[in-house]
C-alpha cells in the first residue's frame, strides 16, 4: 500500500488531523511523517506504478535514488516542522501543513508531467493556506498575490506539458531540456517556483507574512520541489549556471539593507537556491550531487534559522532587526541553536553547509566557469555576512531592546524541533558520508581536504573582519524601519496603477459596449420567453385538434420523403 503511494500517510494524516483534537491530533501529526518515512525506506528504486489515461501512460509513482532522497528530506522536514508547531492549536494550519508536505512528497515521486501538475497545484493551494492562517490583513493580500503566482506557474506547467505530450506522444517526466516542444513553458513554471531573478517576488513577499510555524514549512517544500524538478528536467542547461549565479548575488544586497529578519532569511533562501541552480546548470555528477545535497542541507539549516526567528517572533511579537537585540540573556538556548544554523548556512567546516556548497563551488571551477566561481565566492562571503552574522547579531546581541525584559525561552516543543535540526546540521557536517550515501551519484568527493577548508576559513575570516570594520566605522547600513522595493513592486504598484489609468481611458467605450450587449441579451431573452415562457406558444397546453394536426403534418412529410 505504502509503495503504491508514498504520500499516503501524510494525506491520511491531514484527513485525520481535521477530525481529531488535542493529544490525539498531536499523535497523528507526529505519526504521519514517521510512517511516511518508513514507507520511503521500504521503497525499491526502479519500481513504478503505471496506468493508462486517454491514451497516455501515467506514472503516479516512480522511484529512483533522486526521488528517495527528496522523499526522506520532506518527511524529515515535515517531522521537524510538526514538532515545532505542536503548541499551536489551529486545526487549519495542521491540516494544511500535512497536506502541503504530502503534496511535496507526491510531486517528487511523480513520474509524469500530469501527476506533477496535480501536486504542483496542490502545493500552491495548501501553502497559501499557511500564509492566510496568520489572519492579518497583510497576510491575506500577500497570500492572494502568492496564490495567483503559484497557480499561474501551474498553468504554465500544464500548457507546457500538453505541448510536450502532443508533440512527443509521451507525458513521462524525464530530461526535458529547453529545445523540447513546450520546454520553455515548463522551464518558466519551474523557474517561478525556484524564485529565478525577477520571478522571485512572491517568495520575499509572502514567506515573511506567514505564521511563525507556517514559514518553517514554506521554506522547506515549494522551492525544493522546484529544484528537484529542475534537476530532473533541465540538468546541464547552461543558462541555469548564469541564472543561478545571479540568484546567489543579488539577494545579498537586499538582505543587507532589509530590516524584517524573516525577510532577510527569505532573501538568503534565494541566495542558497542560486547555488543549487548553478549546480544543476553545470550538470556534471559532482555538481548535481552538490545541488541535491545542498537542497537537503538547506531545508535543515534554513529551517533551523526560520525556527529560531519564529521563536523570537513567538516570544516578542517583533521581527524588525531595529527593534530587537540583547535577547541572548533571556533566550540562551535559542541563541546557541540559531548560531548553529548560522554556522551551517555560512558553510563553516564541520557544519552541514560546508559539505554540500563546496561541491557546487568546486564543480564550477572544474568545468571552467571562473567568473561564476568568483560570484559564488562573493555570495558565500555575503551569506556569512547577512545570514551568519546579521541574523544572530541583531536578534540576540546588538543593543539591548525593550523586549528583553519580558523575553523567555520558547515552548519546549520548539526547542526540541530546533535541537533536532541543529543535531542534523552538525551531524551531516561532521560525518558527510551519511548524506553522500544517499546521493544519486558516487563521485568519491571529499570535502575535508586542506585547500577546501583553508579557502573557506579565509573567506569567512575576511568576511567577519569586513562586518566588524564596517560596523565600527559606522559605514554598515543601519537597520532602518523601512520598506525595500523589490521586483514585486512592479506588480504591486506599477502594474495596477498603469492598468487603472488605461481603464479610466477605456471606460466610456466599455460602458457603451456593455450597454449594447445588455440590451441585445435582454431582447433575446424577451423573445425566448415569448415562445418558451410559461405561457409561451411552445409551453401551452394545446387543443387536441392542433396536436392531431401535427401528427398529420408529420405523417404527410414522412410519406412525401419516403415516396420520393
Amino acid at each position: 500500500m505504502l509503495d503504491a503511494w508514498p504520500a499516503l500517510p501524510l494525506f491520511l494524516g491531514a484527513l485525520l488531523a481535521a477530525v481529531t483534537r488535542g493529544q490525539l491530533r498531536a499523535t497523528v501529526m507526529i505519526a504521519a511523517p514517521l510512517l511516511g518515512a518508513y514507507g520511503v525506506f521500504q521503497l525499491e528504486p526502479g519500481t513504478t506504478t503505471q496506468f493508462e489515461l486517454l491514451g497516455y501512460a501515467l506514472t503516479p509513482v516512480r522511484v529512483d535514488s533522486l526521488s528517495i532522497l527528496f522523499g526522506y528530506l520532506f518527511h524529515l522536514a515535515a517531522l521537524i516542522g510538526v514538532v515545532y508547531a505542536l503548541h499551536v492549536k489551529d486545526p487549519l494550519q495542521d491540516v494544511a501543513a500535512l497536506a502541503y508536505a504530502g503534496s511535496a512528497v507526491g510531486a517528487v515521486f511523480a513520474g509524469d508531467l500530469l501527476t506533477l501538475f496535480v501536486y504542483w497545484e496542490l502545493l500552491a493551494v495548501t501553502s497559501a493556506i499557511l500564509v492566510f492562517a496568520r489572519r492579518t490583513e497583510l497576510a491575506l493580500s500577500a497570500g492572494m498575490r502568492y496564490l495567483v503566482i503559484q497557480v499561474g506557474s501551474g498553468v504554465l506547467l500544464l500548457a507546457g506539458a500538453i505541448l510536450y505530450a502532443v508533440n512527443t506522444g509521451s507525458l513521462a517526466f524525464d530530461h526535458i531540456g529547453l529545445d523540447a516542444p513546450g520546454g520553455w513553458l515548463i522551464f518558466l513554471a519551474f523557474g517561478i517556483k525556484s524564485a529565478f531573478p525577477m520571478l522571485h517576488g512572491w517568495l520575499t513577499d509572502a514567506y515573511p507574512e506567514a505564521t511563525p510555524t507556517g514559514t518553517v514549512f514554506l521554506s522547506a517544500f515549494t522551492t525544493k520541489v522546484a529544484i528537484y524538478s529542475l534537476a530532473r528536467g533541465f540538468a546541464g542547461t547552461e543558462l541555469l549556471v548564469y541564472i543561478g549565479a545571479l540568484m546567489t548575488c543579488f539577494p545579498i544586497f537586499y538582505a543587507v539593507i532589509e530590516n524584517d529578519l524573516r525577510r532577510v532569511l527569505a532573501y538568503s533562501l534565494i541566495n542558497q537556491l542560486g547555488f543549487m541552480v548553478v549546480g544543476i546548470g553545470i550538470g556534471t555528477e559532482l555538481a548535481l550531487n552538490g545541488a541535491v545535497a545542498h537542497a537537503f542541507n538547506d531545508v535543515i539549516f534554513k529551517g533551523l534559522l526560520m525556527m529560531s526567528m519564529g521563536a523570537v517572533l513567538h516570544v516578542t511579537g517583533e521581527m524588525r532587526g531595529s527593534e530587537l537585540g540583547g535577547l541572548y540573556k533571556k533566550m540562551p538556548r535559542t541563541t546557541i541553536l540559531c548560531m548553529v544554523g548560522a554556522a551551517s548556512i555560512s558553510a563553516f567546516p564541520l557544519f552541514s553547509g560546508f559539505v554540500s556548497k563546496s561541491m557546487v563551488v568546486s564543480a564550477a571551477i572544474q568545468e571552467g566557469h571562473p567568473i561564476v566561481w568568483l560570484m559564488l565566492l562573493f555570495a558565500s562571503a555575503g551569506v556569512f555576512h547577512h545570514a551568519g552574522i546579521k541574523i544572530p547579531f541583531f536578534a540576540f546581541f546588538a543593543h539591548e531592546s525593550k523586549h528583553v525584559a519580558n523575553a523567555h525561552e520558547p515552548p519546549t516543543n520548539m526547542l526540541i524541533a530546533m535541537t533536532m535540526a541543529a543535531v542534523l546540521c552538525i551531524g551531516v557536517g561532521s560525518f558527510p558520508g551519511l548524506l553522500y550515501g544517499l546521493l544519486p551519484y558516487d563521485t568519491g568527493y571529499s570535502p575535508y581536504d586542506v585547500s577546501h577548508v583553508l579557502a573557506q576559513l579565509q573567506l569567512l575570516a575576511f568576511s567577519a573582519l569586513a562586518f566588524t570594520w564596517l560596523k565600527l566605522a559606522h559605514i554598515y547600513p543601519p537597520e532602518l524601519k523601512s520598506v525595500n522595493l523589490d521586483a514585486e513592486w512592479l506588480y504591486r504598484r506599477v502594474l495596477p496603477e498603469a492598468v487603472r489609468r488605461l481603464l479610466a481611458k477605456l471606460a466610456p467605450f466599455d460602458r457603451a459596449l456593455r450597454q449594447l450587449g445588455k440590451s441585445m441579451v435582454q431582447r433575446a431573452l424577451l423573445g425566448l420567453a415569448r415562445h418558451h415562457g410559461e405561457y409561451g406558444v411552445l409551453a401551452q397546453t394545446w387543443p387536441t385538434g392542433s396536436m392531431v394536426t401535427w401528427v398529420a403534418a408529420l405523417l404527410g412529410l414522412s410519406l412525401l420523403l419516403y415516396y420520393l
Partner: protein
Amino acid sequence: MDLLDHLPVLVVIMPLMSAPLCVLFDRARPAWLVSMSASWLSFAAAVYLLIQVSRDGTISYRLGGWAPPWGIEYRIDLLGAYVLLIVTAIAALVMVFARRSLEKEIPADRIARVYAALLLVFAGLTGITATGDAFNVFVFLEISSLASYAVISMGRDRRALSAAFQYLVMGTIGATFILIGIGLLYMMTGTLNMLDLAARLPEVADTRTVRAGFAFLTVGIGLKLALFPLHLWLPNAYAYAPSAVTAFLSATATKVAVYALLRFMFGVFGAEFSLNKMPFDLILMVLGLAGILSASLVAVFQEDVKRMLAYSSVAQIGYMVLGISLASNTGVSAAILHVFNHALMKGALFLAVGALAYRIGAVTVSSIAGLGRRMPWTVAALVVGGLSLIGVPPTAGFVSKWYLVLGTLEQDLWPVALLVLIGSLLALAYVWKLVEAAYFAEPAADAAAVREAPLSMLIPVWALVIANLYFGVNTQVSVGVARQATDLLMGGGG
C-alpha cells in the same frame, strides 16, 4: 421444461395476472402486497434472463408450444433483456415508494384500482419488450396505453382528467397508426413474426405499401415516445398524474417506445432500408435536435417542477433519437445507454419530487424555497439527479452524453455536438433554478413544519441516486451490454 424455461413469458404474466387480484381484494394493503411481489418477482426474473441471455445468447420461447412463424414467439435478445431489466427494476422501486405516496394522493377506496392499472401498464411494457410478434406489440401497447390513461386520470388535480383524455386521443391515434403499419406489412408478407418479416421484407421493399407501412409505424411510435413535435400530450399527462405513476411512466414508458422503434427500424426493416433507402435518419436528427433545444428552453421557464421535468424528458428523448439518427455503432449504443441512464435519473428525480409532494403538496419552484434544510436527503437526491441530467461526471448522465458527443464527432458533425452541449447548458439552467430555490431562497412561513420524507420513500429514491453515481463510475455493465446489444442489432436480424 421446468419453470425457469418459462421465464420469458412469466415476466409478462405475473403482473398481468396480479392486476385482477388487486381489483378483487379492492383494499390498499393487500393490493400493495400483490403488486410488490409481482414486480419484485419480475425483477428477479429479468435479472436471471439478462444473465442467461448474455451467457447463452438470444432466447426464443414458443407460446403454447406452437412453432413460429405460425405460433406466437417470445424472443428475448440482449437488448430486450436490458430493457426488461430497466422496466422491472424501476417498477420494483416505484412499488416500494408508492405505498405512502398513493395513500396521500388517492382516496382510499381507489388505491387498489391504481395498483391494478399500474400493474397492467407494467405488464404491457414488459410484453412489448419480450414479444417477437409484431401484432403482439400492438396488443401490449394497447394494454399499457389504456391502463395508463386510466391511471393518469386518477391524479388529484382536476386537470388530470383532461390531460388523460388528450393522451387517450393522441395515444389511440398512435396505436392506430402502428396497427395500420403492421397491417400493411402483413398485407405484403403474410406474416407477423418479426424475424420472418425481416426475412421477407427485402423482396418487397420497393413497394409503396411497405413505404407507407414504414411511415405509419414510425409516426405512430414517434407519438408514443413523445418525439418532438408529437410530444404535446406528455407534459400535462406527467404533471397531473399521481407522483408514483409519473415516476414509473417517465422512467419506463418512453423507454419501451424507444425500444420498439429500434426493434422495428433495425430488427424488422433493417438498417439498410430504414436509414439508407429512407431518409429516416435525417428526420430523426432534425426532430431530435429541435426537441433537445426547444423542450429544454421551455423547461427553463417552467414554474411547476413536474412539468419542468416532463419537458426535460422530451429533451432527453431528443438525445436518444439523435443517437439513433447517427446510425453508427457509437451513436446507437449511446442511445441505448441513455435509455438506461435516463431511466435512472428521471426515476430518481420524479421520485424525489414525489417525496416533496408528500410533504408539501404541489411542487413548484417557489414552494420548495428553503427546503434544503428541512428535507436534506430528498433535496440532495434532487440535486444529484439534476447533475446527472446535466451530465456532470461522475454521474451516469455524463457517460451517455460522452458517448453521444463522441458519436457526433466521429462523423465530424461538430455543430451537432455543439448543440448537444448547449442542451446540457440549458439543463444546467433549470436544475440550478431548483438548487437556488431549495438552498438559497428564504423559506416560506409555513415551511418550518415540513419534515424529511418517510424512510420507505427515501430508500427507493436513494437506491436510484446511488445507481446514478455507481453507473457513472463503473460503466462496465451498462456500457458493455449497450455495446453488445448494438452490435447484435446493427449486425442484422436481432
